[in-house]
């Protein structure tokens, strides 16, 4: 196992540049990164054809370390940049890395419209319930009553559920994984990449340094222990009585439908405009 990880590290990371990473000890983003890398490797995607796009925030630092075509954009906008890349050059496999602040607050509008448009982009939304890079402010997924530096007396808003949001907005593939369940996460990312159309994988991740400390949730191990105890796969949930699911969250493929993909639909527009198809 050790050997496998090392080989992939050399294969997919930019070894020359900018290590160690910006991520704190115990952060879950590196685990999510590993899952994305292993999924790409498993699919044998040529690195030249992979384009990784991100916004601003802890999770959005990921592309800098990855040996793909990488674009670190402005705060909240990676999906809009990625739409331009995919639309202009459909042969590229576009993976967007975003977080709960980047993707759901400042980038919320682009998020719902990318889902609705159903362009073939895979989005990995790493949800750590806080703005880590700026020091622990309230995010749109901070749970009710939890603390943030800008909600020192507890959050009085409800958090978004990114999966329900993506599903309602029109995404054709929605999944949730955690940084504890790494093999499952790798499979979910792989399936998301394989899916034609807009796919979204939410990764429940831990931020022990900032969010965990503010909310007394313990260290990284304890926070991942919490993930282990509260995550229920959709398959297992079907066999469980509702009262046992009360404080749990679902993982696995939550939504998987077929709908025409945007770039393919636009190809029809091109043909129609040229009078080649009625």
């Amino acid at each position: 196992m050790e050997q496998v990880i090392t080989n992939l590290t050399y294969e997919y990371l930019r070894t020359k540049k900018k290590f160690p990473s910006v991520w704190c000890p115990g952060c879950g983003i590196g685990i999510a990164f590993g899952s994305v890398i292993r999924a790409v490797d498993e699919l044998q995607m040529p690195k030249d054809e992979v384009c990784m796009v991100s916004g601003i925030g802890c999770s959005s630092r990921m592309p800098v370390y990855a040996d793909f075509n990488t674009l670190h954009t402005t705060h909240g906008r990676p999906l809009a940049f990625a739409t331009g890349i995919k639309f202009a050059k459909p042969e590229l496999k576009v993976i967007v890395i975003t977080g709960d602040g980047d993707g759901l607050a400042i980038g919320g509008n682009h998020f719902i419209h990318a889902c609705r448009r159903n362009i073939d982009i895979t989005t990995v939304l790493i949800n750590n319930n806080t703005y880590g890079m700026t020091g622990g402010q309230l995010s749109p997924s901070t749970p009710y009553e939890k603390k943030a530096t800008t909600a020192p007396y507890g959050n009085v808003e409800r958090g978004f559920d990114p999966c329900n949001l993506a599903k309602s907005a029109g995404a054709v593939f929605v999944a949730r994984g955690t940084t504890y369940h790494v093999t499952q996460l790798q499979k979910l990312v792989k399936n998301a990449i394989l899916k034609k159309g807009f796919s979204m994988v939410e990764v429940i991740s831990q931020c022990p340094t900032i969010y965990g400390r503010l909310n007394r949730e313990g260290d990284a191990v304890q926070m991942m222990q919490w993930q282990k105890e509260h995550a229920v796969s959709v398959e297992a949930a079907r066999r469980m009585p509702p009262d046992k699911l009360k404080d749990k969250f679902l993982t696995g493929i939550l939504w998987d439908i077929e709908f025409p993909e945007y770039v393919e639909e636009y190809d029809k527009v091109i043909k129609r405009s040229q009078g080649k198809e009625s």
Partner: protein
Amino acid sequence: MEHKRDTGKLRLLQGNTACALGALAARVEFFGGYPITPSTEIAEYLARELPKQGGKFIQMEDEIASIATVIGASLAGAKAMTATSGPGFSLMQENIGYAYMAEVPCVVVNVQRGGPSTGLPTKVSQSDTMQARWGTHGDYHAIALAPSSVRETFDLTVRAFNLSEKYRTPVILLLDEVIGHMREIVELPEPDEVKVVKRWKPTVPPEWYQHFEINPHFVSPMASFGEGYRYNVTGLTHDPLGFPTSRPDEIKNKLDKLKNKIEHNINDIIQVKEEFMEDATSAVFAYGSAARVAQEAVRMARQRRIKIGLIQPLTIWPFPDVYMEHLSERVDLILVCELNQGQLIGEVMRASCGSARIRGLHRYDGELLTPDEIFRKIREVK
């Protein structure tokens, strides 16, 4: 093929259509936009015509997404543009700054209307002149062009693409409501008469490639995503490889590069049009639709033997400093006519170190200046 039918004969065209035709003549491949008056005709025309040539048109959810998708498309190798007006131009500013920083060629058309805020959606203004130079935060150097007729709109749209691709930078094309909606009979050049510049591509192997290479040209060759170079692009201040840096020498080198690629090529970028200037002792300085009116006023003055000429900068940013310095030594009066409360007049004053008096005529009530108004002002200040 469609191209041929559209060009090379007399046609009655509005400025916005000429802009779209100019973009097609410059081989635009991608348009991302959001509807806004008075620019929407550009988007509508390209929504219809771009796919006929295999190009891509997308209407985004807002202007922020529009410019983002244009930058993404350009990085993927497409010649890309967007068109908007004041409020949308304001929304785009952060990502226009990204394009300066990441050195991504793209053309942003701003068909100006009255402001601030929602302002006057259907009325003319030149009040985004300073925003075209200083709209986004940070130190950067902008290129902005301002045509004064339908034919000039076609030509300067082509030129905007050429400068953008040549210098790897966004170029702002400043139209205004009058130029955008004015109809004129024009003859457009044949497609093969239009000079089209392609971006400079790398010839080195990927391991030697630096996306932001510092070289004597100050412009780096640009590989597209998917061409085997696998580089990083970020809006953070970066080193020549495109990785974020906080080293003072690398920071300074980056910002110097953005400055030098404009300043060292200033003679290639700047275009100033002159009329009746051979024996002129005074000059009207005007751009965009105001220049069109000023042209008539200057002719009226000439008929009355007033030795006045017209200076029309087609490039308003970078500002023609050296030209204006010389002009201020040649003439004793410069009358600046603008449809705002006074934006470029400050630049004229800054650049004119000679003895010329600088006077201004500013109209900002949503209406165009009239030739009579300018002519009366010429008589008053002369």
